[in-house]
């Protein structure tokens, strides 16, 4: 029998369609069909300046907008050969780690909801809401933050109260993670639904290009924050959790432990921001970055630079660059080809969900239909990023 799962199915996390060939309850073949959310972002980027494309990136992985902003800005900075000042880098680390926590909260809530544990959803969304409110505090948007810019940040952190709020959140967070774990980690139903379900061997994971928690759940120690550090991650102290068997339970444990590690990193970033104190939040290279408003009012050159950048953007050199970061879902990278004009000649997005979803058929073939739900949930996909 052929069963069509999706594209309007609540547990496919968006408009994913999976065509299942079944023999009774056993899945013989699973074929994911994607593209329902395709909006041609790569094409549109060729018609926009680099800065204009940043809001587009929010809409790819809409659960982790700041990670997308960061990957985009780092790739453009690599092309321009500039580096954000230390304060901006610490803010980036702090915000992307909070993003990781909130993205994993959504993943955990929906994954548990799919399997039948409804309570977790309400707990995790409570914490996610706190992170969204922190986004609101820094830039006025809850979901589509667009807070990072090429060369630094869109604006400085709010003068008062923000770091204290962050600190309160990361101090409280480990206790909340304990709450989630109380509900799930030793829950016999949860164990029955996830242990030895949807297994992925390390060999298959590598061959299929899986990254992030999907790869680490299979026991491969690979985290771009450690292996190819960016934004000063080499100076933060944290561990990279890995699984052993590569089943859905291992991926669950890896992500939950990652949330704990993220609170550790965020704490260090807050301490670092206090240590640095007020300072530059953008590079002072006005060929690429808007000059501060005060200077625009007093300096002729700053006004010219302001006008040039607002009117047609910055001009990167002819060349190309690829930069990847460890997003909550895996390796998220942007590849730019520049022809020297303010618009990229080509922007290619290497989105982790797109690649990770390919492992689905390996995970579920020969297993039960109910395990497909677990497998999709444990992959942590976002269709906005897959279809772009």
């Amino acid at each position, binding site marked *: 029998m052929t069963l069509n799962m999706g594209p309007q199915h609540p547990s496919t996390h968006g408009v994913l369609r999976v065509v299942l060939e079944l023999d009774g309850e056993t899945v013989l073949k699973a074929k994911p069909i*994607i*593209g329902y959310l*395709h909006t*041609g972002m*790569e*094409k*549109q980027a060729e*018609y926009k300046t680099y800065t204009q494309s940043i809001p587009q990136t929010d809409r790819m992985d809409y659960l982790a907008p700041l990670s997308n902003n960061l990957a985009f800005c780092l790739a453009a900075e*690599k*092309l321009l*050969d500039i580096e954000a000042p230390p304060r901006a880098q610490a803010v980036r680390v702090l915000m992307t780690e909070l993003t990781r926590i909130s993205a994993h909260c959504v993943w955990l809530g929906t994954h548990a909801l799919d399997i039948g544990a409804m309570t977790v959803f309400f707990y995790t969304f409570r914490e996610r809401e706190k992170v969204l409110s922190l986004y609101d505090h820094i830039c006025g948007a809850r979901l589509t933050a667009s807070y990072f810019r090429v060369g630094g940040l869109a604006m400085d952190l709010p003068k008062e109260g923000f770091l204290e709020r962050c600190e309160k959140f990361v101090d409280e967070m480990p206790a909340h993670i304990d709450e989630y774990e109380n509900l799930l980690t030793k829950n016999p139903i949860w164990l029955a639904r996830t242990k030895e379900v949807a297994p992925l061997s390390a060999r298959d994971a*590598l*061959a*299929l*290009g899986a990254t992030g928690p999907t790869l680490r759940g299979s026991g*491969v120690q*690979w985290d771009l924050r450690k*292996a*190819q550090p960016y934004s000063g991650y080499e100076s933060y102290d944290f561990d990279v959790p890995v699984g052993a068997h590569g089943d859905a339970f291992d991926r669950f444990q890896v992500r939950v432990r990652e949330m704990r590690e993220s609170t550790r990193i965020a704490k260090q970033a807050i301490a670092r921001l206090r240590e640095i104190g007020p300072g530059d939040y953008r590079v002072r290279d006005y060929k690429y970055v808007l000059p501060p408003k005060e200077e625009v009012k007093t300096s002729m050159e700053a006004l010219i630079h302001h006008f040039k950048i607002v009117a047609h953007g910055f001009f*990167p*050199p*002819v*060349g*190309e*660059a*690829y930069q*990847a970061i460890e997003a909550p879902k895996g*390796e998220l*990278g942007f*590849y730019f*080809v*520049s022809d020297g004009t303010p618009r990229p*000649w*080509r922007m*290619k997005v*290497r989105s982790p969900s*797109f*690649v990770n979803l*390919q492992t689905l058929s390996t995970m579920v073939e020969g297993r039960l239909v109910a395990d497909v739900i677990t497998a999709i949930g444990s992959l942590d996909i976002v269709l906005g990023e897959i*279809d*772009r």
Partner: protein
Amino acid sequence: MSSLTHERVEQRLREQFPGVSFERQAGPAVRDFTLYLPVDSLVEVCTFLRDDPELDFAMLSWLGGVDYLPRDPRFEVVYSLLSLSANLRLHLKVRVADEQLRVPSVVRVWPTADWHEREAFDFYGIEFTGHPELIRILLPEDWVGWPLRKDSPLGYEEVAFTHNTPDRIKPSPDLKKLAPKKVTYRAH
């Protein structure tokens, strides 16, 4: 971490494949180490890069097409390889001419190439020979044209789903042939 460098990779490749012309992409702002190689030796070189214990490029991070209209050869396909053991990225490129839009598929080397190659086919119409199922992936199956080519316009394509055409059997009519809508005015 091992001390494998890009220069060492290039040296190993030149030793292993003396007949193949590798060419390093030059340019002041080419930020990643990139090697051009001829299309016909692609699979061979990729298999070697994956299987050699020193190089060990076990993962294909991504691949994608680029359209360089009006340059000739017009297209390029970029392969971004990743060696986890050596912590090294390597970009390979092949040039593809418009008349001969064929590249051998690397699905047999890295199964992850499956969807990436379908995407490049979908966007640019590059045919990957040997691919098990080369069909569109992101666009609808009946889409005509290759949207990421530079001669494909951003907008003004026919509307795919419409309710206000007189002939509902044809979902995408030629808009020029449509008669203006008849409007009757009534005096009160």
